């Protein structure tokens, strides 16, 4: 699914991540790593939000840097600390994402009902952190991407919603063959997911820990 070749990410002169050669197959992957190890940077690179050096290919065909639009059509990102202008409503954001990603007609409505988010007509500034997280998850699941990146998706969510997220990941994976890269600090919770492999971001690189 993902191929890294001579990948380097610097902030100024400081090297944050370096992955000379790596293949990540399709499936569900858990990315572990300490705070500040570079997990979020990796996700922001894969999400097309920040530049990098080297090559990353999706499905051996889409070069993420050279084909930014195809890249964004195939990879969705749910951020660890989602941030939106306080004066917009969740509905406005969902409509934008649904139209931009040409989502199936009733997908947004289904996701809104699924996460029980009946507050989305209100401005984002009135949301609690959990409510905001649910909105960011809905936005991440909109469309039919090949890969969804979920950065700390379980943080600030209640137990019932965590279950909903697991079920949705399994459903997207089995029905639409969507792959997932997920970061989480909760080891116990991640064990409930059917994982393809576990990875560790450490010492400025990404290494495989185990294969299921």
């Amino acid at each position, binding site marked *: 699914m993902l191929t890294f070749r001579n990948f380097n990410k610097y902030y100024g002169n400081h090297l944050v991540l370096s992955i000379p050669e790596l293949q990540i197959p399709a499936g569900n992957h858990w990315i572990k790593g300490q705070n500040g190890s570079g997990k979020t940077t990796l996700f922001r690179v894969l999400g097309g*939000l920040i530049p990098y050096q080297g090559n990353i290919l999706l499905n051996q065909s889409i070069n993420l840097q050279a084909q930014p639009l195809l890249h964004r059509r195939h990879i969705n990102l749910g951020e660890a600390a989602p*941030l939106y202008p306080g004066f917009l409503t969740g509905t406005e*954001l969902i409509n*934008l994402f*649904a139209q931009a990603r040409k989502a199936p007609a009733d997908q947004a409505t289904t996701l809104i009902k699924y996460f029980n988010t009946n507050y989305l007509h209100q401005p984002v500034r009135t949301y609690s952190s959990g409510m905001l997280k649910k909105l960011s998850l809905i936005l991440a699941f909109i469309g039919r991407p090949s890969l969804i990146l979920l950065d700390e998706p379980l943080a600030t969510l209640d137990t019932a919603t965590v279950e909903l997220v697991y079920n949705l990941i399994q459903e997207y994976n089995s029905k639409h063959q969507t792959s997932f890269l997920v970061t989480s600090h909760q080891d116990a919770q991640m064990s409930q997911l059917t994982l393809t492999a576990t990875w560790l971001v450490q010492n400025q690189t990404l290494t495989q820990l185990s294969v299921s």
Partner: protein
Amino acid sequence: MIALLRILNKVVVQQFYQLNAGFFLVVFFLSFGIQQSPTMLVSPYFLTGAVTSPVFIFSVLGVFLLYYLKCFNFLLKTIRAPENEYLFITSLFPRRILWLGLALTHLQLFLPALVYTILISYYGLQTAYYWVIGVVTSYNLLLILYTLFYFGRQITQTIPEAADNIILRSGEKRILAHPVLWPLRYLVRQEKVMLGLTKILSLGVLYAFMTLYPYPKYDLRPTFIGFLTAVVTQAMLVQQVQQFQETALVFWRQLPFPRWHRFTYQIILFSLLLVPEIIMVLRLNFNPATISSLIFLVTFGISVISLIYTLLYLKLNQEAYLKWVFFIYIGLLLFLLLHPPLYLLTILLFLLAYSLYYRYYYVY
């Protein structure tokens, strides 16, 4: 399409006009409040004559360019703001829809200039100066095309970090390292256009006063008025500094500094903000006979900017703040014409500024 237009309208257009309400008020006042009917910039009498002058037309294009830079800077800052990162999703719309959205956004931001373009074109047609219509229309087309090209690229590509940012950052770190100077670092980094335009305006005004009424041919009052005007033009920068201090540097309030200490820091900060104007006033009027007056003038300028800053702690909205700045400016201008002892005025202004700061700094 509608979702895109709605988002761009709420995130860019509405925010722009809300944030710049004070700016448009001042422009409106300068254009209509202090102009006589024959010289009013929109009067038929004025425009019929003015469109025949290439100097006027190119001055208008210059003003359009400054206004365009203001709009451009706002749009760029909005698109790059962390809370607007989600806007990258708009790149997935078909290109013609994205460009249409950007074009409509540009037209709405640039509306005041477009209205004036239509007026000029109308009078160009009336006076058979057709080249005027050609020039202003092509100029507007160029600006809109540049907006589409630049922001289309900003949205659809992952923009590499500019190398000059790194150079600027290291320079900033060395020169503006002290926490007291962080607001200046913020201006240099995030309010470059506003800082640049303000300095061009204030130095231009000061230069005009000092060269049109040079000392010793005239007395020092025009220099005083020029310097006062240059100081007052910093009002929007002062507001940005205060907002930055009260949002990003809000922890500063919790640090155990007495108020006189904090006030002194502000004086140091504003003295540095006025360095270009101070250098200009000292260079152009350097004369052993005037040096003490110029030093008093510089101190007076710092006291004025400190007073303007402390006004912001009275919880005024932007319109009220700009009105107060204007009243202070007119009042001090009249005082300066009377040639009062400058040191006395400076001491009074510092005392007033400090009492306001002391009284209102910890009022939430």
